[in-house]
Structure formats: structure tokens, C-alpha cells
């Protein structure tokens, strides 16, 4: 548990911040979900920790960027810290990496329950197969409607680097979606007519 000195913000500031956070809540949750590999429980916990950090003054908005960008950067950092902590804890408890992998597989299966359509399922699998940076860039641009500069600020990289992640991610996503769709078509045709193909 972090034990840094907390600075209390005055209630007026908190009230203003609370209104802004409420406005951004659903977007923040979506981003937290993306940072937590679509694990809802973990995403909720991360968001809670982020609100706690803001409430206690551990995370302070300096006004260098937009509130949304700042909030997303805090969420990203908190999710990374929580993930590391969780990983360490589970290694300490189980001491078996294979069991650990199984546990994550269960989590993934649970989150798969949310998947609606078949195409959405393929899309989410394709997203999970992407490297983290590429996934983040795509999510920030397409899901959160941020510009590349804002995405770069959230990711803590240069705009050139963010653009590269975005382009590569888009290309890979397109490729894996195409592969999945093709595979799906073949399977579907085989199921309908086994003699075909």
C-alpha cells in the first residue's frame, strides 16, 4: 500500500473535480477496462484507486493538459501498478506460474461473456492479440475520440511514436480481423456443406 504524504484539497476544488469526473466517468471506465485487459472487477478497482488518489491529493491536476488526458494518464499508471502488484501477490501465494496463467485465462473467459456478436468477439480477440502500446493507441483514438497528440500525452510517448503505434496497430488489427473472418467463413461453409472447400 502506498504510504506517501497526502495533501488534502479544499472542498470547493473537490466539488468541481467531482462534477468533471462524473462527466468523464463512463469514458474513464472504458479506458480502465482497456488497461485491465477487459477485466471488469479490476477496472472498477483501478477506477476506485484513481478517485481515492484524487480525493487524497496524491494525484493533482496541474493544468498542463486537458483534464481528460491527465485523468487517463493517471488511470493508465494506476492500472499498471495494480497489475504488477497483483502479479507479485499471486506469485507469492501460488508460486506456480502455470496456475497464474490459468487464472488469467479464467478472467479472460469471464470477460468474454460480455462479448455480444460473433464479429465483436473476433474484434476483441484481435485487440487482445495486439501489443499493449498499439492497443492503447487504437483505443484512445477510436473509442475515446482523442487526437493523436492527446493519445501520445496519455501514453507518455512522443507524437511520432504514438502515430507509429497507431498505424501498426491498425494494420495488424485489419490483418487479424481478415484472417479470423476468412477462418470463420471456411468453418461456416464446412459446417453447412462438408464436401465444400
Amino acid at each position: 500500500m502506498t504510504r506517501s504524504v497526502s495533501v488534502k484539497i479544499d472542498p470547493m476544488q473537490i466539488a468541481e473535480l467531482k462534477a468533471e469526473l462524473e462527466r468523464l466517468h463512463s469514458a474513464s471506465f472504458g479506458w480502465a477496462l482497456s488497461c485491465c485487459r477487459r477485466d471488469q472487477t479490476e477496472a472498477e478497482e483501478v477506477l476506485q484507486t484513481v478517485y481515492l488518489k484524487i480525493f487524497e491529493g496524491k494525484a493533482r491536476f496541474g493544468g498542463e493538459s486537458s483534464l481528460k488526458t491527465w485523468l487517463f494518464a493517471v488511470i493508465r499508471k494506476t492500472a499498471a501498478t495494480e497489475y504488477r502488484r497483483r502479479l507479485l501477490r499471486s506469485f507469492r501465494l501460488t508460486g506456480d506460474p502455470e496456475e497464474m496463467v490459468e487464472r488469467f485465462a479464467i478472467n479472460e473467459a469471464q470477460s468474454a461473456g460480455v462479448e455480444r456478436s460473433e464479429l465483436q468477439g473476433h474484434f476483441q480477440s484481435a485487440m487482445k492479440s495486439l501489443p499493449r502500446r498499439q492497443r492503447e493507441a487504437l483505443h484512445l483514438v477510436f473509442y475515446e475520440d482523442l487526437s493523436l497528440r492527446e493519445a501520445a500525452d496519455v501514453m507518455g510517448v512522443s507524437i511520432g511514436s504514438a502515430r507509429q503505434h497507431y498505424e501498426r496497430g491498425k494494420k495488424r488489427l485489419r490483418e487479424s480481423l481478415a484472417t479470423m473472418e476468412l477462418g470463420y467463413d471456411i468453418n461456416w461453409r464446412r459446417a453447412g456443406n462438408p464436401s465444400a472447400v
Partner: protein
Amino acid sequence: MTSIGEEQEIRALFSELKLADEQTAPGFTAVWHRAQARSLRPRRAFNLSFAVATGLLVCALATLAFWSTRSQPVAPAAASAVMSAEASSFAPRAEKSTVAGAPEPRQYSVPLVKNRVRRLVAPRHAQEIAASQQLTKEAKAIASWQSPTSDLLSSPSDGLFKSLPQLNENANELKSFLPNRENDKEK
């Protein structure tokens, strides 16, 4: 499929995902209140990793201190402490009476320091004495060494080479040091 069309497709997939997430998202008020409740909850006072790290650090420091005390030569401060302690034991009693008015130093401190210093110094001192004795022995042995063939170098006329004629000797004795000229002429 054109790239714009693909982008639109990706965007559509993302917006579908966004809609699904919005439906499952927890309420802001609930999350905020839980965060506030967490901030009010008392923190765990004992942090295991912090305690382990502190313990390791203390152990390392203690080992370093012990090692440095053992490996260093006798510190001048310690030596002076021994000297002063010994000097104070031989000091006349009268001196003490002259400073009777002044506050006396603590009685237990000098013997304690003395004992500790002696304990630390004694083994090293003994080693140094043994080493110097060994050195003296070796030096003596080297000084008294004689070659086993030194007797072969000695001859009966060694006395002539090693001595000088004295002025108060008579002429006949001096002749023995002069070259034999008559014999040279005959030749």
C-alpha cells in the same frame, strides 16, 4: 475494401464496444463513495516488505560496522585512550585532590573503555610481537652466516696482506717489504 471503409468498420466496432461498456459500467456515485470509504479506513500499520527491507539494511550496516572494527589497525584515538588510562593509573593521588571541586568524570567509563580497548588490541599486539621476534632471529642468522668454502681462500701469507709495516720497526724487518733488487740485477 478501401482504408477509409476499414477505418469506419473499426470505428463502428469500437462504438459497439463502447455501448456495451456503458451498459455494464458501475455508477459514478457508488465508485466515488467506495473510494471515500477507503480513504477513511485505517491503514495497515505493518508493512511486511518494508519491515524486511529495513531488517536487511540494519543487518548490512551492523556487518559493515563489525567488519570495519575488526579489519582496521588500532585507531589513534583508541591508543591514546589506552595511554591516558594507563597514565591515569600511575598518576599521583594528590592531583585528584586538586581538582576536587570540579565535577568528577563517571567512574565506570574509564575501566569499561580500557577493557574494551584491551580486548580489541591484545591479540593484534601479541601478533606484532611474535612477528618482530621472528624478524630479529632471521637478521641474526643472516649476519652470522659463513660460506662453507671460506677456508680454501685463506693462505699463510694472509698476515702480510692484512697488515701494514709500522714506523718503529727496525730496518731489517722493513726490508722484507722491499723488492729484492739484487736478485733482479742477477737476472
